[in-house]
């Protein structure tokens, strides 16, 4: 659940002088909402641990970055209980903090990618992406030598791969260090974590899609409809900022599989790649594979001139 209007959040802000600045109109609005909700509660039966009570508390929670560790734990527990009540599944949502001295980086080997798209499939399954609209975080483009941008490539190929005389280029969120999407967000629902992952607080997103327009890399996806994931295919290991189940009107994107990478695992795409074209690791570790690639290979980034500083490099053997 998320606030219906941004004004709700300002009414309930934590500043000490909030009471003084609260106007008559705001007070009436709040009182009306309260009355309406209490009425509904009386009709549906509102026990403290029940579904309505949980939804009520979820409705008024803070932005993830303002939560204390205890509040994070509480919201995670509520979401787990709600998933049990709504869908009858036992999920585990983590609120794991970033690992110290880690800055994630990614490299993509253009010589090795053969366009098998196993990464795309693994990503869809791992991140509980909407099956109905066929949402995908990763796009693979088929390009001819000389083409350097996916804009001129074929992103909807469906034939036996690899085709002679073509190469394949994977595009996803590049987790820019100087991310334009973060600057565009009017509700501060998206930000860069200390380990370099650009994340979205789904419950704070109002669905304005400014970030989608600001991203020069086609990295963000919008839920036009309630996402549908078959119950038996839901990935149960989830993260608050990662693959937990979204609902309609929320923006989402690749999170380098935050639920996996913060545990030391590779993102699902890198783990699934059958040709080893995907390299993932810690940029601050001089012995890591990603640092080897950056040191010894010819690398480039897309639209480097924009100054967005993506942490995603392409390289050739």
């Amino acid at each position, binding site marked *: 659940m998320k606030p219906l209007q941004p004004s709700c959040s300002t009414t309930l802000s934590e500043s000490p002088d909030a009471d003084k600045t609260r106007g008559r109109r705001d007070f009436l609005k709040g009182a009306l909402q309260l009355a309406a909700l209490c009425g509904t509660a009386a009709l549906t039966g509102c026990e403290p641990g029940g579904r309505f009570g949980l939804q009520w508390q979820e409705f008024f929670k803070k932005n993830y970055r303002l939560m204390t560790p205890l509040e994070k734990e509480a919201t995670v527990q509520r979401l787990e209980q709600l998933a049990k009540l709504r869908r009858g599944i036992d999920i585990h949502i983590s609120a794991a903090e970033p*690992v110290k*001295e880690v*800055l994630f*980086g990614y490299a993509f080997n253009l010589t*090795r990618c*053969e*366009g*098998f*798209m*196993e990464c*795309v*499939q693994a990503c869809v399954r791992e991140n509980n992406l909407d099956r109905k*609209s*066929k949402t*995908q975080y990763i*796009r*693979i483009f088929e390009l001819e030598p000389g083409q350097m941008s996916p804009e001129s490539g074929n*992103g*909807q*190929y*469906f*034939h*036996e*791969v*690899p085709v002679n005389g073509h190469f394949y280029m994977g595009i996803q969120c590049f987790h820019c*260090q*100087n991310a334009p999407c973060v600057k565009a967000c009017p509700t501060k629902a998206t930000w860069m974590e200390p380990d370099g992952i650009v994340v979205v607080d789904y419950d704070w997103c109002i669905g304005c899609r400014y970030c989608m327009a600001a991203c020069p890399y*086609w990295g963000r996806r*919008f839920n*036009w409809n309630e996402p549908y994931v078959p119950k038996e295919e839901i990935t149960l290991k989830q993260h608050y900022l990662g693959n937990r189940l979204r609902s309609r009107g929320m923006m989402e994107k690749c999170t380098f599989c935050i639920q996996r*990478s913060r*545990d*030391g*695992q*590779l993102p699902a795409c*890198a*783990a699934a*790649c*059958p*040709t*080893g074209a995907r*390299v*993932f*690791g*810690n*940029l*601050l*570790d*001089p*012995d*890591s*594979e*990603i640092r*080897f*690639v*950056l040191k*010894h290979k010819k690398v480039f980034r897309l639209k480097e001139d924009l100054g967005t*500083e993506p*942490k995603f490099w392409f390289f050739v*053997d």
Partner: protein
Amino acid sequence: MKNNSSYLRLGFIVAVAWMALIGLAIDGFCGHEEGVKALFQQAMGPWHDPLAATIAGALPADITQVHETYNGRPFWTQTRKDKVTRFKCSQCHDGRTVTAENAAAVAHGDIVLDHGGAKPLSCFTCHKDNPRDQFETEKGVTIDMDHVYELCGQCHFRQKSDWIGGAHGKRLDHWAGQRVVANCTSCHNPHSPVFKKRWPATYSLPLDEP
């Protein structure tokens, strides 16, 4: 004439001095890197991995330490002998003549040798009579089958050096903790190492359609 050449010389000296000045200015103002590159280039010290202890418990059993290191760091690779279904070779190839009918077709008929392109390899490029259960390099060094990268690396030395650093090949499961990578023959069929054409696992819809 004399005047002309001295002007030329003066002009040349001025031009060189100007270029040197510009060079110095570029070094001075733009020599340092900015952004992400500066961030990671400053990080030169060894990283103390806080996840290593938890990951160590989840490592697969079928790994062996590679005889190479990168930056002095050891790494591990998948064993291969336990995946070769008819290992040991010397069970059949024990020096006596095999008398069973169609023995070669029955035992090794599934092998299609397509390695080397215009100069195809033969079985005996890699497999030797003696030793049977190991490989041998061209220099005559015996190689355990689990360390097959030493055999492949004789020709594919560029891929091998990339593999040691991490630009070729594939790390397994974890980016942190002990580094475990796939062996050459974990991914490549040694008898026909090029990946075969096949259908992609899925397909994409146009991006701009809701």
